[in-house]
């Protein structure tokens, strides 16, 4: 048995649905290309994908070498360390033994090419503690 319905708002709903689907697709496509994951050196070495990631860790003391426009240093999470090559000027507060987050990708030869370097300060940086890392707002 058919229930009579008012026909008028139908096109509005159709339009709204099209808009919602269109925006949903736009959002998903954009997210797929632009999301950058935070990784530790251990994770990067294990996954060894060439996607852009943000690599966080400590700058190993004694590994920083500046050569013209390129700086190289090792970033460690305590288990694994990775050689990072960064172009351009680094932040003035970039120090050995302190935390840094670099954005870039792993090159086929195993070095990490960074196009952005950010520094975390000892008095503000709290290394993620195992077990609490997946608890935002906690």
């Amino acid at each position, binding site marked *: 048995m058919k229930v009579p319905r008012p026909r008028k708002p139908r096109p509005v709903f159709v339009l709204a649905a099209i808009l919602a689907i269109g925006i949903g697709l*736009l959002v998903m496509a954009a997210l797929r290309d*632009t999301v950058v994951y935070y990784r530790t050196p251990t994770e990067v070495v294990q996954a060894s994908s060439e996607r852009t990631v943000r690599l966080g860790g400590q700058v190993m003391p004694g590994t920083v070498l500046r050569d013209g426009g390129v700086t190289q240093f090792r970033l460690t999470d305590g288990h694994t360390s990775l050689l990072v090559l960064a172009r351009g000027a680094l932040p003035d507060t970039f120090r050995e033994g302190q935390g840094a987050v670099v954005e870039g990708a792993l090159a086929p030869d195993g070095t990490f090419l960074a196009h952005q370097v950010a520094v*975390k300060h*000892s*008095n503000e940086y709290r290394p993620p503690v195992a077990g609490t890392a997946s608890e935002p707002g906690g």
Partner: protein
Amino acid sequence: MNTTVGSVALLVGLGASLAWTMLWVSVALWDKMIPMARRATYAALTAAVVACGTIEWALITHDFSVSYVAENGGRHVPLYFTVTSLWGALDGSILLWLLILTAAAALLVHAGGRQPGPEHRWAVAIVGGVAAFFFALAYFAANPFESSGAVPADGPGPNPLLREHPAMGIHPPLLYAGYVGLVVPFGFALAALVTGGAERDWLPAARRWALGSWILLTAGIVLGAWWSYAVLGWGGYWAWDPVENASLLPWLTATAALHVTLVRNRKSGFTGWAVALFGTTFLLVLLGTFLTRSGAVASVHSFTQSPLGPMFLGFVVLCTGVSVGLLLWRGDRLSPASTSGRWLSPQSAFLGNAVLLVAVAAVVLTGTLYPLISELLSGQRSGVGADYFDRTAVPLLLAVLALMGVAQLMPSDTRDGTRGLGSRLLVAVCGGLAVIALVGFAGRPTVLALLAFGVSAFVLTGVATVWFSAAHRRSRPGLLAHTGIAVVAIGITASSCYATVVTQDLAVGQSLHAGGVTAELVGIDRRAEADRMTATAHLELRRGGQQFGSLAPQLHYFSARDMTTAVPAIRSGPAGDVYVTVTSVDENGQRAALRLAVNPFVDLIWFGGAVVVLAGLLALLAGRDARAARGAEPSPAPVELAGKAG
């Protein structure tokens, strides 16, 4: 001493605001104890004033026994920045939030007069509930008055970025006032759902509060962008950072709310939309505050976590639940949407724009929340880059701009807004196309940029065509706001298309070139100041061999916080801003890493923003005049009394 006074003030405020909520509910239900209820609200305001006064006193007198002062005060900090450090960190900023919230509530109560209307009573009660939460938050989770244990001799001072510029005194309070003022329309919206009353009894007052808050919020956002550009020195004005998004989200939905509640539109049955949008706007304010204040969004900017998170999240969920529940339960009492049934009408254009603005907000919210959601679901920490927003929000914003250009050509005063629309549209489209042709001919910008220029020109031409028509006389504040928005759009597009940037490591005597400008590094000097070390790079600017000025960007190192800030030097001229920052200086003061940018048309953004704020103020004044003119006619007392709130 200060710790006791402050904590007691917060407790008294908590008690007063709980009493305020319950008393106003009783006023709304049984019409009893109005004077008492009013006194409870004023008492909460007094408590907030005392709490803020105490922390300011402790900051100024360097009372390091107070935890907040020990963490954010310092003997070396100038008085002005000592005063502004009230809102320089989390705990203090919640006190400022409380002060503004209770002040707004007192204003609302005062405007209600002796016999406020039923929606007004419920609205005050709902605002009281929010105030009680914030007092509880300040006391239990973010108490700045805790005693600091061993009293230090000196403190580190506020975050260096927050003592570089006097705008610190205006920008955060403006933004907060805009944020907090939106609680009143939220209260009215929920009140309307509770009472099911006619919209004329509450919508005008709610709209005026929304308009006032929107003006402050707009000013706050523009000032924030300017600050980001002129003080923070990373070279841009908008980074789609969670903090920035948090201020943009309520602005988008508030803008949509202001459009569906235009006085002339009221007969069209958009009450449901108004209620939903006012509700959403304040929920976004809460969500934004939660995201940015609790450290929930993992980003390079903040790794610190705060105990405030769970409590705040609980409140956001509670408010959302109550709003959605009320909307589902009582929403059918609101007058149903009765569109004229035609696709092209001022009403459908307003509605369409509201839908698009909400879509932009949804897209921005998705990008902001994605890291949080993905971490909850998969345990992976992630970040969403600015690219995401450029690819999703920007095209949608262009659609908003285009629809805005069409909607403004239809006078909503008259019965048939579409008459003569064709010819006006033709003129405006020609204006847009002409600009596209001109810009495309002059250079080779991207398709998106070309489109943005064209749509902006379409809007501006449209404003020019209808500005002097009698049917649009009352729309002039809106048209002016559209002008400002179009100017901002041109500024953003042009400055991102035509900017040139060069970064280089230079020795003294060398120079770098960008956008036809040559900057020669003539010297570097270092100085020790009271609270910082300063390194200044002196540059001489030349264009075509002709010297036209000098700039001295600085690097400030704050040893108390082991933090460096780069202070840009900017020279504005007709050909754009010459913008120089120094990112590092070597130990012997002979080399410096410099960033030289030539940014044309950035000024248009600040100018356009100022025009939008001015337009908002004109709309507020125009509303007053209209009410004064109507004053002769008999009208329901509550509306007129509530009307004084604006």
